[in-house]
């Protein structure tokens, strides 16, 4: 951020027009009229941000103390404390965290924290998902989910319309009953499997989530009867990995 002529011009007339001092005031008010603050050491006795950081975080705040508490006598006016640009005299102070600052609702804070960890859609991991008996395939972005449970829910949603036929007389009620759906998907009737980087078909859920996301190339929800041959190879694979 350029700190220079532009701002000085802004000061111009406006500042002198504004008179905020009290009529017939004392010494303090003289300072107010001049628009400056007397260097009486009036910053003392105030528990500033830095002190709070010391108290709350036990950090050494010498750098930040220098940045905010000094009275400006020793610093050139152009000095930029904020360190956002290459113009700064020294590296920016560590942005330590005081509870509740900046004042942003927890809801928003959590969303932002989540965003920065997931890193956005440049890294999307779309894989095809097929379900035996379904007329067409779907695609999911594995990076949108953080756990097997979330993925399972999403798959349940996607393929819910295809299970109507299997619901018998209970029909819509069962279909809308999520736990029944999960039972269906989780039961021996359907087995979720995936093809990994080596081209092997594995049982979903055996490896840690992140490892799964990295290695999964496509998903298949197979009918239980076809899954019998799956298990032994999956076991072998796990043994080889660990």
């Amino acid at each position: 951020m350029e700190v220079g002529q532009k701002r000085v011009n802004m000061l111009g007339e406006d500042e002198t027009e504004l008179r905020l001092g009290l009529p017939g005031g004392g010494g303090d008010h003289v300072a107010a009229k001049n628009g400056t603050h007397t260097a009486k050491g009036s910053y003392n006795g105030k528990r500033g941000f830095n002190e709070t950081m010391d108290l709350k975080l036990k950090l050494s705040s010498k750098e930040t103390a220098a940045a905010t508490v000094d009275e400006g006598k020793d610093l050139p006016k152009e000095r930029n404390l904020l360190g956002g640009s290459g113009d700064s005299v020294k590296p920016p102070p560590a942005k330590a965290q005081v509870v509740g600052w900046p004042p942003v609702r927890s809801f928003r804070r959590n969303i932002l924290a989540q965003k920065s960890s997931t890193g956005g859609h440049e890294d999307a991991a779309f894989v095809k998902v097929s379900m035996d008996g379904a007329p067409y395939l779907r695609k999911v972005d594995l990076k949108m989910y953080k756990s097997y449970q979330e993925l399972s829910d999403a798959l349940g949603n996607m393929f819910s319309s295809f299970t109507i036929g299997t619901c018998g007389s209970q029909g819509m009620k069962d279909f809308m009953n999520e736990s029944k759906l999960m039972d269906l998907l989780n039961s021996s009737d359907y087995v979720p499997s995936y093809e990994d980087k080596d081209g092997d078909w594995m049982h979903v859920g055996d490896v840690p989530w992140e490892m799964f996301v990295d290695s999964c190339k496509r998903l298949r929800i197979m009918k239980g009867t076809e899954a019998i041959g799956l298990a032994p190879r999956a076991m072998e694979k796990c043994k080889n990995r660990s």
Partner: protein
Amino acid sequence: MMNYFPDEVLEHVFDFLESHRDRNAVSLVCQSWYRVERFSREKVFIGNCYAISPERVIARFPRVRSLTLKGKPHFADFNLVPSDWGGFVLPWIEAMARSGVNLEELRLKRMVVSDESLELLARSFPNLRSLVLVSCEGFTTDGLAAIASNCRFLTELDLQENEVEDRRGQWLSCFPDSCTSLVSLNFACLKGEVNLAALERLVARNHNLRSLRLNHAVPLDALQKILMQAPQLVDLGTGSYVHDPDSDTYNKLKSAVQKCTSIRSLSGFLDVAPRCLPAIYPICLNLTSLNLSYASLIHNSELIKLIHHCSQLQRLWILDCIGDKGLGVVASTCKELQELRVFPSDIHGVGSAAVTEEGLVAISAGCPKLNSILYFCQQMTNAALITVAKNCPNFIRFRLCTLNPTIPDPVTMQPLDEGFGAIVQSCKGLKRLSLSGLLTDQVFLYIGMYAEQLEMLSVAFAGDSDKGMLYVLNGCKKLKKLEIRDSPFGNVALLADVGKYETMRSLWMSSCEVTLGACKTLAKKMPRLNVEVINENDLIDASSDDRQKVEKMYLYRTLVGPREDAPEFVWTL
């Protein structure tokens, strides 16, 4: 004194009084006005749920149909209030159920709402039409299922920024087929999946739906189908706005959006693929409200392209990655702008993404109707604030937040006293003010002198001595809420004018210089105040030294004495 008008006439006249403040004023005129008013009041607003008991509210206003309750102090939003502090809605619902209140509308802010409360609510009030929960917590999707299943005439279910535990129980599917009365449905804050087919059917059969805000689990193809069913929407919150812009689905979305000519308010975009944004350009021209404050993945340039289409905006919530330049575009495009909120995108770093005083000055110069601002910025100067004050004398709400809370004016190295002083002097209608940056007692002198309409003041890391706080308490006659953290105000300021606190709703002081002894003195002098001392770390009790400083103090006027639901770490003196 003769009463010239029969009660019915008075009641009819009072019908025209919308605001609870007007009604409160009217009920003070005389006994008969008090009587008529209390029987005719249907909407009751309780700014602090502990100021009065539910029984007394119901006794005074037996015809209450709509209740608004606020619970925790504002600083609870920023994790300064321990989570078990209080603010439970259950006693209110129980009392109303017992008394046979015909509740139609319940609006809660910062309260603890359990599933049990929601279930009781759903069972006890068959005419419940509207449930609005803002910044609440304590419930799960099971509670929502109870509401959906039982409230046959529900028109509004509005969940804003609540912490809701997801039980994956398909709550949305619990709306029966007979539910066709929905006007507003907002579940954007929910984290879990919803049954998309049920959602589509719900939208299809609720032809009066005007406001729909989806959560991130609703993908773009579902959005497209929903919009086809609801072209009458006025307010839309998108779910996950990610898709392949070369796909058929995206094209379908484009044509669906074009049919939604009534949309005036747009939000969502928690997940967004910027290349899909052009689909919404056609509706941008009509937008009066746009909330992109969760869309951190939209690049500056795309944001600016979008803004160019939005010339009718009155309200804009955006992230600071828009930059000063982007704010310049807002200033030149959005001439109708009244409210602007610029949120920080990077809370932890010293991001170069942040905006500075330049953006604020540009907005103030370009948007003459601006009256409300929340601005998180890297830095601020007195000169800028003085200019802003001159450009915008109409501010009602002015909240400035520098990411470093004690940063001085970087040009002059001075505190920001003069800048804020200019704001309060120029904006004669200012009702709410939040300060930040390096500030001395001087700024409080100005506030006390000039902020005559000020009702709420938020102070952090500011001031030098008790004088600062005293200027405010003595000067701001209309002050209702004062919240202070990490500032050197102590016993002298606290005890100077104890009567003042009965004219206010509440006072919060944390990490200040106030001692236990002073709090006790205050509590003793003012029986109609609850003085709560909150000490989580070292439990304060009868054996504690009066000279000990109090970590957090929250005091509020009340007619019903100390509350019985206070947890261990809260001591009402």
